[in-house]
Structures are given as C-alpha cells and as structure tokens.
C-alpha cells in the first residue's frame, strides 16, 4: 500500500484571487512581511500498487484526468509506503525528514 500526497496549485501565470485575499488578511493582522500567497488543494490518497513506479504512473494518470485541470493547474505528487505496511523497503531510505523524498516528482499536467 502506498500513501500519496497530491498538491494541486494554480499555474504561476494564473491569477489567484483567493491567495491575494488571504495575503491581504495576513497584512491586516500585521504580517506585512508576507509578499505572496498562493492557495491550492491538498489531497491524500491511499492506494494499492505492486511497486512505487506503478503507483506513480497511476497517480499521474489520475492527476491528468481528474485531480488537476491542465488548463489552469499544476500538480506535484509525493509518494511513500503506507506506514502500516512499513517493511525493510529500499524505498523509504531516510526520506522521513523534511528533505524531499526520492519518490517525489512534479507534473505539469500534460496535454494542452
């Protein structure tokens, strides 16, 4: 079993009124050092797959077909074995810390 975190964000060229509104809220609270806020979506998927490569392939397909809209959004997938299924897997390595997992990857949404 794998646990995937999918981050969906508006492309940099797309205006983000929600992010701008959050920024002005932070400014109103006195956090004037904030120069930019981008809002997005965070999805956690648990899925069964024979190995990490196939899990990633399926997640990419899911992101392209449904989770993100390639016209306006980018996505990023972080993949790790489900904790319950932890075993001496070479996939885990030392990726528990804040450093990006070797399994992390980015997608630009593909297509047009």
């Amino acid at each position, binding site marked *: 079993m794998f646990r995937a975190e999918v981050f969906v964000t*508006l492309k940099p*060229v*797309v*205006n983000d*009124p*929600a992010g701008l*509104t959050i920024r002005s809220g932070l400014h109103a609270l006195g956090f004037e050092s904030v120069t930019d806020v981008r809002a997005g*979506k965070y999805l956690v998927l648990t899925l069964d797959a024979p190995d990490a490569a196939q899990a990633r392939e399926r997640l990419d397909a899911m992101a392209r077909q*449904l*989770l993100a*809209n390639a*016209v*306006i959004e980018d996505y990023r997938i972080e993949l790790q074995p489900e904790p319950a299924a932890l075993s001496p897997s070479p996939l885990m390595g030392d990726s528990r810390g804040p450093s990006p997992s070797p399994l992390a990857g980015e997608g630009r949404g593909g297509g047009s």
Partner: protein
Amino acid sequence: MNTGVVVFPGTWSDRDCAHAVGDILEQPVRYVDHRERRLDGLELVILPGGFSYGDYLRCGAIARFAPVMEAVTDFANRGGLVLGICNGFQILQEARLLPGALLRNASCEFRCEWVNLRVEQSGSAFTQDCRPGQVLRIPISHGEGNFFADPDTLDALERNSQVVFRYCAPDGRLTADANPNGSLGNIAGIANARGNVVGMMPHPERACEPLLGGVDGLAVFRSAIHALNRVAV
C-alpha cells in the same frame, strides 16, 4: 425544437430552463437524467446551472464523467446543439468541448446581478437572431465565472470569432466596471469552432418573461429554434 435538460445531482436551474423552453416558447422538452446514455430524438441539449456534485474538486470536474456526458459529447460532435449555462459552461470546459477554464471571480464574491452582454457574432446557433453589437440584459449568478485561457487559445478564439458574448456597459462599451468577475477580454460566452456548442455564464432562462425583469434571454433560445429550422430546410 426537441429539448433535453440534463439534471445532475446538485443542478438547480433545470426547472427554469424547462419553463423557458417548454412553457414560454412552447417547445417539447424533457429532463435527461445524468445516468442516461441516449439522447435519441433530441435537437437541443441544455446543461443548466447549479452546483453539480457540490462543486467538489472543481466546478464541473465530476459531472464531466457522468454517463450522460459521453452521449452529450457524441451529440455535440455530430453537430447537435448544446448550450451550457453557468455550471453547464464549466462542465463543457472540463469535458474539453469548449476551451479555457472559469476561475474564481476576481472579487472572490458570489455575484448575483443583472449584466449587459454585447453580442459579438451572430454565427453561433444561439445568436442567429441577434445582430453583432446588440446589447442583451441578462442576469448572472456565480462565484466562479472568471474566464481564463492561455494566450494562444485566447488568440484562436478571437481570430475564429468564437467569442459570442462580452460583458459591457449599457451602451455596449467594454469597460472594466462592466466586467463582474475579472474575465479576460470581458468574455461571458464562447462557441466551439463549428458554432453548435455554446457556453455562457449568464442565465438567459432567467430573462424570458417580464415578470422576472426582462425578456432578452429569449433571443438565445429563439436563435436555436431558427438554427434548427435552417438545417432542416
């Protein structure tokens, strides 16, 4: 004009559309359930406004995979008339039957008000009864109607005269004040290249009788009737 009004879980404008087409224009109309797979006998399919599937994930993202959408796509590709209103427009874009996307309104507010629309071209099936430059008064009611497309797509839309409606001042001028949601180019509605599929954020079905404050929306439905008659001849 045999009309089908598609009903998804969370659709809210289906009755208004059926009332406009069936009661006011006296055309045969039926509701099409989102699980149906056949559109036999229909000449116009309307995807009405609402919050299909609660707008979960993105507006229209889930509706796009409803069984009926395969039939709607076939119908559109065969030249059938398809009108997507508000959430229906969002669904048509998610289904890639129309280009671009609709972002959250620039104001972050849900806007429910009467707007003025300038008809940009009378070639589409839903503007044949209008003349270019004509101004229609029709209400909007949405939180995510901020039209966006990448520069190449936008260029192509303009070049091919696929922009059907723009938000304008009462005299037809395109101004920032007249744009209720931040749409690029004040775009309120577009057509596919063939002109048989149109998506628009404003609600023509809510401007079809004086009791509701205006009748300019009738032009959209009457155009479809005439487009069909022209094909039949």
